[in-house]
């Protein structure tokens, strides 16, 4: 079972598709949660997910906005997609009776 930050990271990478790389994922997570995640949390989580076979990373091209530095590109593997789906299904199932998940909420 994924942790919540792992789920956020995989989902952000899946949403970004071909444009998924560390800084873009960091922006997506910040937009979703309202909190900036640290480089340390991001990189160590990417490493962990890659070692579990849920992500694949490689060095991308360098761009002028990055001071000519390369990107760490990220792609979600089929195993990663399945793990994220399992997590989402579990959250959706457990939330079905919660007031914040029903139309009457708020």
């Amino acid at each position, binding site marked *: 079972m994924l942790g919540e930050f792992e789920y956020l990271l995989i989902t952000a990478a899946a949403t970004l598709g071909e444009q998924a790389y560390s*800084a873009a994922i*960091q922006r997506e997570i910040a937009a979703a949660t309202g909190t900036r995640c*640290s480089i*340390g949390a991001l990189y160590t989580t990417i490493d962990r997910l890659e070692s579990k076979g849920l992500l694949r990373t490689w*060095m991308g091209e360098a761009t002028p906005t*990055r001071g000519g*530095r390369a990107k*760490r590109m990220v792609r979600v593997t089929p195993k990663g997609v399945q793990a994220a789906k399992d997590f989402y299904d579990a959250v959706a199932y457990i939330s079905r009776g919660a007031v914040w998940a029903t139309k009457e909420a708020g």
Partner: protein
Amino acid sequence: MHGNWSMVERAAQLLGREERETVLGDLREAGESPWRGVLDIAGLLVRREALLWRNWQPWLAAFGLTLPASFLLMGFSVSVSYSYLHLMTAQSDVLTVVNQAVLLLAWGWTGGYVVGAISSRTLWASLLCCFAPCLFCISRFRAPHLSSPCLLLFLAPAVYGVSCGLRGSRLPTNTSLGVAFVTTLLTAVAINGGLWSMHWLLVWPSCYLAMNAEVACT
């Protein structure tokens, strides 16, 4: 501003080449301040180090082997030095000196090998656990006819063992079993001759070496 950014680049030197490239690029792209950049890099380094210490190997290498073995081997280095001195005055026999010298080499080399093999990325902690006791003992060493470097006779084989362990070089099974057998035998003889039984602690690295060689062959 540019001057401050050089501080971030200096901190990033502690990262690997590819990771340095991507982390610096991410910080540039996000428009982070230099201080934020340094904090981010420090955070990444601390997290990486903390992950290493979630395994048992660094703890065993630093506090289960290096720290106690350093004290024992310093004591034994002094014993070897005295045996050698007594040999000069015919108060000790050649066999005793050779036995002790071989034992010192075996304990030092096998201990160093295991430390290098199981904790290559946390070697700094093991080195600290060796050098701190050495400095402590050297500063308090008072023995007639012996100088303080006699405490450190074990360091040469230990350092060589660490370099072999870091390279991951394996001994052939027969050689490893031979080293383990000889070390155990000589330890038993030495302890039977009055050596502190705590020195049995120094035998397990040679057994680890033998087991490791066997695993490599199966």
